[in-house]
């Protein structure tokens, strides 16, 4: 406020010395870029010659006299006095008001900006402020509303030189509410390039702007497992093919034993073929079939599940499986990629398998049948190729553990793993 008063008191000085006028752009609150865009004065009450381009070319131009003119020309009809504004090139309220370009008389012509510090726009002045003060850009909704501004804070309100002579029309005007026209059903180019000349290119246009097909094959796990007794291997991968919303997804996972007491064999192996449909920005609904090669006897399942990114960037997957023997299984898995550096990434991972019933045939018990916790540290040589090491802890639970014990197998296993995460 003090600065503002100061500014105003300095105004006459600035008037006298155009050079000073420029320094006003450094005014604390006002910030008028007088130097940068020497307000091409309003053509309106212009006693000076309004040669716009010339003015623009030389920043030192003194817009002052022009602005002065406007208010003077306005016999305080609106009980405002702009004269104090003379030195404020950045504000030029008069310009708009007095502009001949203004199609209609402006009730705001010549506000007394000299009293800016405490300025209050009387109700009577009412009307649409956005005609006078384009720089303020009042919302359209303000049209016709009474203005009771305490303009004391004006400096804060974008008087940043944008007010400099820009006329009352153009983008300062509020839009009307004409109805939108109906969209045409024809293509204008067909009138010029006839006989179907546009057909192929139009089809290509659509295909190339949002209808592309893509695909990806990812092996999140492909590893050798070192553990007490019998080393093993494991894979967990997924591939998809399709467009943004609809995709064919193939999943496969499994594990086996290398050179154990019973030799090398595959313990579990499954493949799923799923139709995947985007549900929302992050989640896909997936439905299809799952076939287990191992363990024997094999099973076929109808599958439904979701896959996506949960809050906090957890890659998550949950599925229900209904077997051809009527058994219901479930699976939940998730992992999180913690970047340690841009290329060194730690991936905690958990997988829970569930069953609704005992399935002695495949040695699965009701409840949580087994749980796997993994921690894998990879280095992204490229995004697509990341060798990793880690640990994996696998625990059979409940009845499943009982089956295992009965079979003389262990119920838990800790493995050191080494593998490669890869995709393309």
């Amino acid at each position, binding site marked *: 406020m003090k600065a503002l008063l100061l500014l105003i008191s300095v105004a006459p000085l600035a008037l006298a010395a155009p050079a000073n006028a420029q320094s006003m752009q*450094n005014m604390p609150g006002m910030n008028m870029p007088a130097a*940068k865009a020497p307000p091409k004065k309003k053509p309106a009450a212009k006693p000076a010659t309004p040669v716009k381009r010339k003015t623009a070319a030389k920043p030192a131009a003194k817009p002052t006299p022009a602005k002065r003119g406007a208010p003077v020309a306005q016999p305080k009809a609106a009980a405002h006095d702009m004269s104090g504004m003379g030195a404020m090139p950045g504000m030029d309220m008069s310009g708009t008001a007095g502009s001949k370009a203004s199609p209609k008389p402006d009730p705001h012509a010549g506000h007394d900006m000299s009293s800016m510090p405490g300025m209050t726009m009387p109700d009577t002045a009412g009307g649409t402020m956005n005609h006078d003060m384009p720089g303020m850009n009042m919302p359209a909704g303000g049209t016709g509303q009474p203005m009771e501004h305490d303009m004391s804070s004006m400096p804060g309100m974008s008087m940043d030189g944008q007010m400099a002579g820009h006329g009352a029309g153009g983008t300062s005007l509020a839009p009307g509410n004409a109805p*939108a026209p109906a969209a045409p059903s024809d293509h204008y180019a067909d009138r010029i390039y006839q006989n179907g000349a546009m057909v192929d290119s139009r089809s290509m246009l659509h295909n190339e702007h949002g209808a592309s097909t893509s695909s990806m094959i990812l092996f999140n796990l492909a590893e050798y497992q070192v553990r007490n007794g019998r080393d093993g291997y494991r894979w967990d991968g997924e591939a998809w093919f399709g467009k943004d919303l609809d995709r064919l997804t193939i999943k496969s996972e499994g594990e086996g034993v290398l050179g154990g007491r019973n030799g090398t064999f595959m313990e579990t192996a499954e493949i799923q073929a799923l139709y995947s449909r985007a549900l929302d920005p992050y989640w896909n609904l997936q439905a299809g079939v799952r076939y287990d090669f191992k363990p024997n006897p094999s099973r076929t399942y109808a599958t439904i599940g979701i896959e996506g990114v949960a809050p906090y960037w957890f890659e998550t997957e949950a599925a229900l499986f209904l077997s051809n023997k009527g058994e219901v299984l479930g699976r939940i898995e998730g992992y999180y990629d913690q970047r340690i550096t841009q290329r060194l990434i730690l991936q905690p991972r958990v997988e829970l398998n569930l069953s609704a019933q005992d399935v002695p045939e495949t040695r699965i018990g009701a409840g949580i049948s087994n749980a796997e916790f993994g921690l894998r540290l990879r280095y992204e040589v490229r995004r697509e190729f990341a060798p990793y090491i880690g640990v994996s802890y696998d625990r059979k639970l409940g009845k499943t553990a009982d089956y295992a014990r009965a079979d003389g197998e262990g119920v838990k296993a800790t493995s050191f793993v080494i593998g490669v995460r890869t995709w393309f």
Partner: protein
Amino acid sequence: MPPVLNRRDLFRGAALTGGGLALSAWMPAWAQPVSAGIVKPLPTVTGNDITLKIAHQMMMIDGRASHAIGINGTVPAPLIRLRQGQTARLSVINDLDEDSSIHWHGLLVPFQFDGVPGISFPGIKPKSTFVYEFPIVQAGTYWYHSHSGLQEQMGHYGPIVIDPAGEDPIKSDREHVIVLSDHSQMHPHAIFRKLKQVGGGYFNYQRQTLAGLMAKEDQPLKDRLDWGKMRMDPTDVSDVTGSTYTYLVNGHGPRDNWTALFRPGERVRLRFVNASAMTTFNVRIPGLKLTVVQADGLDVRPVEVDEFQIAVAETYDIIVTPTDDRAYTLIGESVDRSGMARATLAPREGMAAEVPALRKRPLADMKDMGMGEMDMGGMQGMDASGGSTMAGMDHAAMGHDMPTGAAAAGGMAGMDMGSGASMPTTDKTPGGSMARMPGMGAPAGDAMAGMAMGEMGGMNMRDGSKAPQVKMGPGVQTISPMPMDRTGEPGQGLEDVGHRVLVYRDLMAVDRNPDVRAPDRAMEIHLTGNMERYMWSFDGVKLSDKREPIPFLENERVRVTLVNDTMMSHPIHLHGHFFELVTGHGEYSPRKHTVNVAPGGKVSFDVTANAIGDWAFHCHMLYHMHAGMMRVVSVRPRGEAA
């Protein structure tokens, strides 16, 4: 040959064949893998009859050979120099094995010559020729590029300069055309595939890490959790980065050191074109003030800045007056600070100046997510245009009891911006920026603080009711709860660079706008996307969804508000028209063909639909467009039944 060319040594050595192929065009730099400086102006074609041949070629960048698609053997394509008032006849030969096209970006041409396959013409078949012929009705700096597939990324772009019919009001002793672009050794289809496969993180090697957290860099833990909860990455500033791009000046890499000559004391006009596929540049020349005199081909009142941001497809003409007999470095830093385009301004060949290091990359903040002012400690949010910004805020959409907002919504009645506010005695931000004004900051900031919006989780980031016309679906990750008019703010990452940065609100037309009527109506278009799936759209609709066009009537004037519901900036281009930015300049609003909508921001423009036909309307981020961020705008004569 237009006489204007004679006095410009810019064209020294260029192939002025008066319309033939400029075959001398591209001079390989392989003799100097890392050059002391390449003083080679762009090859130029001019005259009434010009032939352009699109073909595969190799180009050398920083001493490395790279495959490209060029025109007349050169990347960028030759400078097309025309004169306002002439008629241009451009025969374009497509020597590729696929369809191609040329769109004259910013030129007002009959719609059938606009060059967008599938909208304005059938495209140019392989091994065939298409002849464009149209009158040149305007002057200024423009450019041209392919509108087919992803050819533009491979080098199919070049500058256009049109000299005014009369005397050029912008005086200069010399000029240089500066075409900024991005080039990758990866095929553009491979780039797009990576984006589709893993979203925005593939090319970003400046993400937040645990190491960074422990070093107390970037966001504190709480913010990281907040952002993680929303599945938003604040480092996601550019989709494709310097990890694969080399940034070019006139086809030359930073180590090639393309050099523009001057004599000390000359007024040098630099015509900047951002012909990148995906890169927003922050341009500066340390040691020189940049006077912006033209934007998107049309003259603006001079604005002196230290740095400006140029979005994809924009052009800016700058005047510099280097007085010292020394070299200056011209830097085009990519907005995510992953690399830079670099050239040298020097009195003589072979000179170089210090090349400053890349600055720290910006982090997106809550405003970039369209959450308004919640993060402002002071007045940052009101940046540069207090009143206007407030007007720009979507008050109707704000379900908060916000004093300032409420006042504004009510026609600003009773608005009291706090008369007791103390005014600073000094304002360090040069002109135009009201931003850091405590005078305003105090009250408004308090008001905001009182909104109890500190908890990010408390705001619904995907409230479709705030954007009824948006088709909510998997392609719409977020809806900005409180998008703001950010045209008064410096571009992303330029808030605190310590010197004057150009903002849109600085731009003001020299000539009165040709149409100063009030808009007949207003409409809103939302810029929507999903970084995770790499889907981009308008109002949740991709071009491939085959919706009806966005209809305009001939000579209808419409206020279009673009609302950015994403955390990326989008340079939006409307073909066949200039539009007036609604930035508070009334009848002298800046007229542009491309406007960059800041993340979480919004921009309004008034457009007079005076060009009959169907026109492309799209984001000029090439891969955003390719993902579907494009629509057709139809302009039909009144009375013609729809």
